[in-house]
């Protein structure tokens, strides 16, 4: 059934040939608006836009990360913090959580084996950030084996750590000019996150924490 449907549909579409246009315009990619901004300016803009979108932006360093995390854990009553299997952030997380009598859990099992825990027990999930866009205050998160998709979605708090070497682009055009977006082989999932989960579906009244995280905390590492 599907095969004949495919042939039928494609044949019909091929019949209509209105005005063949310039093929060079096919990708629609024009010259990107290359704005040369100082890196520090981009970081300021990123931080400003994220805050405007109701993200909690906190500056820290590699050295002070554990105390920053401990403060956040106290502020938001985080007792169970879920992290990926990449060991990068394990020591500061362990240190921070032990100071508030909390625990660090690893996302090292399949989703099906820990789904109840993910939705009901975990207070916060912590992820790394692969890139950022200053103009819109957007973090690009690429889930992986180490940092699965649910880590930034199921827990009520999402903590995203932006390392100092994380590339920050001025706008979407510049981000998408990068090699990843020209590649034909993409990761299973890429997420742009710009605020806590929200909705205005009831009488245009903005409410946070629709289905995903209620709080979106962004830690900008300065070294």
């Amino acid at each position, binding site marked *: 059934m599907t095969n004949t*449907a495919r042939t039928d549909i494609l044949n019909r*579409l091929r019949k209509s040939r209105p005005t063949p246009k310039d093929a060079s315009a096919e990708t629609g990619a024009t010259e990107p608006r290359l704005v040369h901004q100082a890196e520090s300016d981009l970081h300021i803009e990123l931080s400003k836009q994220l805050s405007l979108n109701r993200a909690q932006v906190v500056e820290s360093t590699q050295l002070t990360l554990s105390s920053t995390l401990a403060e956040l854990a106290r502020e938001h009553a985080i007792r169970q913090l879920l992290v990926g299997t990449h060991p990068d952030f394990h020591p500061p997380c362990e240190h921070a959580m032990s100071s508030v009598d909390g625990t660090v859990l690893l996302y090292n099992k*399949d989703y099906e084996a820990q789904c109840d825990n993910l939705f009901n027990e975990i207070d916060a999930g912590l992820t790394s950030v692969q890139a950022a866009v200053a103009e819109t205050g957007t973090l690009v998160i690429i889930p992986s084996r180490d940092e699965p998709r649910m880590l930034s979605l199921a827990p009520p708090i999402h903590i995203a750590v932006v390392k100092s070497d994380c590339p920050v682009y001025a706008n979407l055009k510049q981000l998408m000019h990068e090699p990843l977006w020209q590649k034909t082989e993409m990761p299973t999932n890429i997420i742009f996150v710009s605020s806590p989960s929200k909705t205005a579906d009831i009488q*245009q009244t903005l409410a946070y924490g629709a289905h995903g995280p209620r709080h979106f905390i962004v830690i900008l590492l300065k070294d």
Partner: protein
Amino acid sequence: MKSEFDRRIALALADQELRKNFKGAMHFLRDKRLQAIGDPQIWENMRTEGARIRENVLNHLPELLEQLEANCQKNGIQVHWARDGDEANHIILSIAQKHQVRQVVKGKSMATEEIELNAFLAEAGIECLESDMGEYIVQLADEKPSHIIMPAIHKNKQQIHELFVNKLNAQGDPNDVDRLIGVGRSILRDKFRQADMGISGVNFAAADSGTLCLVENEGNGRMSTTAPPIHVAVMGLEKVIPSLNTLSTLLPLLTRSATGQAITTYINMISGPRKPGERDGPTEVHLVLLDNGRSAIHQDNDMQSTLACIRCGACMNHCPVYTRIGGHAYGSTYPGPIGQVITPQLKGLEQNAALVSACSLNGACGEACPVKIELPSLIRRLRERVAKTNPQNSLSERWLWSIWRWLNIHPRIYHWLTRCASWLHWIPVAGPKSWRKERDFPQLAANPLRHRMRIRKQQTKKAGPDD
């Protein structure tokens, strides 16, 4: 004779609460969009670029779809083609039955509204729960969406509170929107975990990488495409784009036009099912490419640009008719100007002839469209077709139009007559009864506009070119 459409319009106009809800919502959305678009010149350039991208997609539609299919398959996404809604529904049902699916969660998708998937699956004993807050409210009330972006826009918070009390026994402060959202959240979070299958729409599908892109604020789209073991995406075949980098133009156009946001909370790009070693995500991803009348629109040179639409809803937000009668009055899946253009083409012009009449040709929709679809022209073309194939207007109306036409091709007589009419403050024929019944005849100006313009021109000349 009154059509069904006329009856629904009369009902909507008499419902003061409904009119208030729509008026408030449309003002809100128009203001937000205006604030978000910023510099009008940059916005105009973006619209031009967006229009060009979409036009190119339509010019290469079959090739792009084949490329999308090949790359999706390479990524492990199973691709299905459906000529119509019935075929699409059966494809989805067979996937569900193969996996003994009982419970489905669905992200917001107008394509699945169009094919009435929920009702079809319900008949087969499969519950399909809407997970977008607005869609959830509408489903709970046993209604249909009244707006393509904000489905429950016709209801105010008190009405939603009453609905939640009646259907969910959720008591509390009717003005506390956070509480109402919290009720939906806690119910739906359980459903995401329990569902055997997630269904979603697609905002854009990139042909060169085989990537499905979903745009949302709530996170229900991510939930529906991540938690259940099977994900089925349903997409109108015009939603294909050549590559992801066109998103840098199309995304800002979409989100600014739809909700006045520079970007939405989540942009979710899916390029395949869970890979070996990955901890979550569906183990199967299916893509259903839906024709359902689109290839016929594609063949119609005069109407092809209908398919350039990126479903932002700006045309309805700016339509004075939609603002007054709301989405349900149209009686079609897609309301407002784009609905008036799509519905007659998908479901037959003859049966939907009345739809194209609900337009004052003010042009606001065309000006708001982020990809420059000339909606007023498309509506006019459909009107022409209706008038040619199925003239419904009365004898006196047709007679009047022929006089009007004759006068307009005889300018001297026309000008002489308008002059007389303004001197006498009287016009011999004020149109057929149906025109006058609910409208006041406008006062004629003492001086015709043409005359005033001539005087103005003379004055400007006298004042010199620098003034």
